[in-house]
């Protein structure tokens, strides 16, 4: 059985030649949650966008391949690629405020995707959305569907977006820091909800976060990203039991514990950063783009 998402040696550069992704390899098996952790600017969002085919124009892929359920995106023409991505993947975005169109009602925003991607009838899409809203525990779906996005709270909007992401039964969902923009109390509910739906629907998730606490709760596998390079990857339990890379250890040391939230909150060690810089420099020295 082929992996749900398979990325091989993906490198991407900015117009000034700076590399934002450094030979990234990553696999997400069907039904599995793969966490992608790293500090701000590490390139987590870039990877998500690359998979979904929505990289900014200025970012160019110079090497590597991406396969969704065994189909090489690079071998498809633009239209076939769009269709494949549209049918098999979905996004749970970070900011529920800008992720919904402010001038359209929730209902049509959710259903037109189903009608469009899966060719469903309007009625079938409506009932499907109703069912999903039920699953994300929205009590008054009729009312919510008639609302404009600004009439809902942040948590409600994120529920709506989660429902929309799962509605078309994608094989893979990219969740880009889906709880960062929310209240702490709401974060937990949303996280639990995503985990619940993920299990019920058996959907694979590439879960982008910078929060190791979240990683421990939701994922089975972890990739640790630094400066666009995967510095460590492991099963979640293994990673927490025995982190191999010094950067991973430093990240863990920097994560607050509930018992003593501030004691261990310290910046990543100088020596670790120096080691990382050397590692990145070495990989750039060896790097020869295959094409482009």
């Amino acid at each position, binding site marked *: 059985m082929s992996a749900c998402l398979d990325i091989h040696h993906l490198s991407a550069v900015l117009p000034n030649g700076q590399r934002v992704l450094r030979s990234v390899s990553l696999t997400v098996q069907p039904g599995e949650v793969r966490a992608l952790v790293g500090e701000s600017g590490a390139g987590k969002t870039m990877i998500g966008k690359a998979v979904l085919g929505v990289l900014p124009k200025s970012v160019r892929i110079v090497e590597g391949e991406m396969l969704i359920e065994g189909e090489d995106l690079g071998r498809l023409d633009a239209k076939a690629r769009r269709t494949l991505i549209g049918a098999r993947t*979905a*996004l749970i975005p970070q900011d529920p405020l800008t992720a919904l*169109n402010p001038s359209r009602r929730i209902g049509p925003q959710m259903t037109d995707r189903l009608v469009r991607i899966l060719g469903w009838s309007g009625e079938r899409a409506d009932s499907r959305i109703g069912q999903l809203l039920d699953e994300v525990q929205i009590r008054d779906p009729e009312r919510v569907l008639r609302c404009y996005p600004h009439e809902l709270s942040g948590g409600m909007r994120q529920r709506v977006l989660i429902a929309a992401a799962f509605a078309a039964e994608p094989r893979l969902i990219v969740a880009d820091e889906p709880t960062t923009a929310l209240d702490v109390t709401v974060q937990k509910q949303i996280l639990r909800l995503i985990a619940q739906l993920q299990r019920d629907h058996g959907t694979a998730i590439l879960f982008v976060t910078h929060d190791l606490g979240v990683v421990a709760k939701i994922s089975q596998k972890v990739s640790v990203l630094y400066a666009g390079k995967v510095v460590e990857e492991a099963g979640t339990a293994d990673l927490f039991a025995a982190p191999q890379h010094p950067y991973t250890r430093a990240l863990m040391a920097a994560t607050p514990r509930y018992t003593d939230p501030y004691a261990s909150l310290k910046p990543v060690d100088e020596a670790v950063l120096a080691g990382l810089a050397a590692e990145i420099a070495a990989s750039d020295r060896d790097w020869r783009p295959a094409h482009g």
Partner: protein
Amino acid sequence: MDEARIARRSLSPRLWLAGGWLVLALLAAVFAPLVAPQDPLAQDLMLERLPPFWLDGAEPGYWLGTDSLGRDLLSRLIFGGRIAFIVAFAAATSACLLGSTLGLIAGYLGGWADRMISRIVDVWMAFPPVLFAILLVAVLGTGLSSVIIAIAVIDWTRFCRVIRAEAMSQARMDYVESARIAGYGRIGIMLREVLPNVLPSVVALLSLEMGIAVIVEAILSFVNLSIATDDPTWGGIIAEGRLSIHQAWWVLVFPLVTLILTVLSFSQFGEGLKARFDPVLR
């Protein structure tokens, strides 16, 4: 939240005042033959320069007085409104369609389409608009359709610039990205996701442009480049009024007031509509 919204909805005096004046003026213009107390072209030297109704020497039936040829001012203003509104609607709509379409394309697609359209807009805006209008009408020949074409050809850039900027900021929104992921094409996204969000601005600009078209038409009439018939126009009446300002100030003042009220109403009406259309402000 609901209460605040209801309050905001009902409390929009500018929308009502502006809309009220426009409706009144429009109805009067449409039903001019029924509404106007006199024949706007009928000259009567016995009745020349009658003052408005509250001054000594006013004649009943000539509410705002008469001009130096004895024509009823109110009736001329009402009939003049016909041309003003025709030009306002036709010219503003044409400018809006042309400018908004190009602005949407430039702002959303970006790239070479944007560079090309933006360059044209820059060149266009280098011309002083009134001079440009006079030049165009001189080339096209006077007449209603020339005036409309001239205004549309000159003022589409106003729409293009604003809509381009708004479409650009829309294009960066996450929901546009989600639509792309879901497999929508560029045209689909432009019409479905971007257009509804720029529509409030389009409506506001459209209304503003109607006011501008009224002014431009008046200016063209004023310099005798608009409609080459005897039909009264506001600009034409102002031009005549200017000549007899010392003997009959009302012939200048009333059309000016009418013009200013109409133009102001168009812009205020547009702003009010925008506030109402915008789902976030609403």
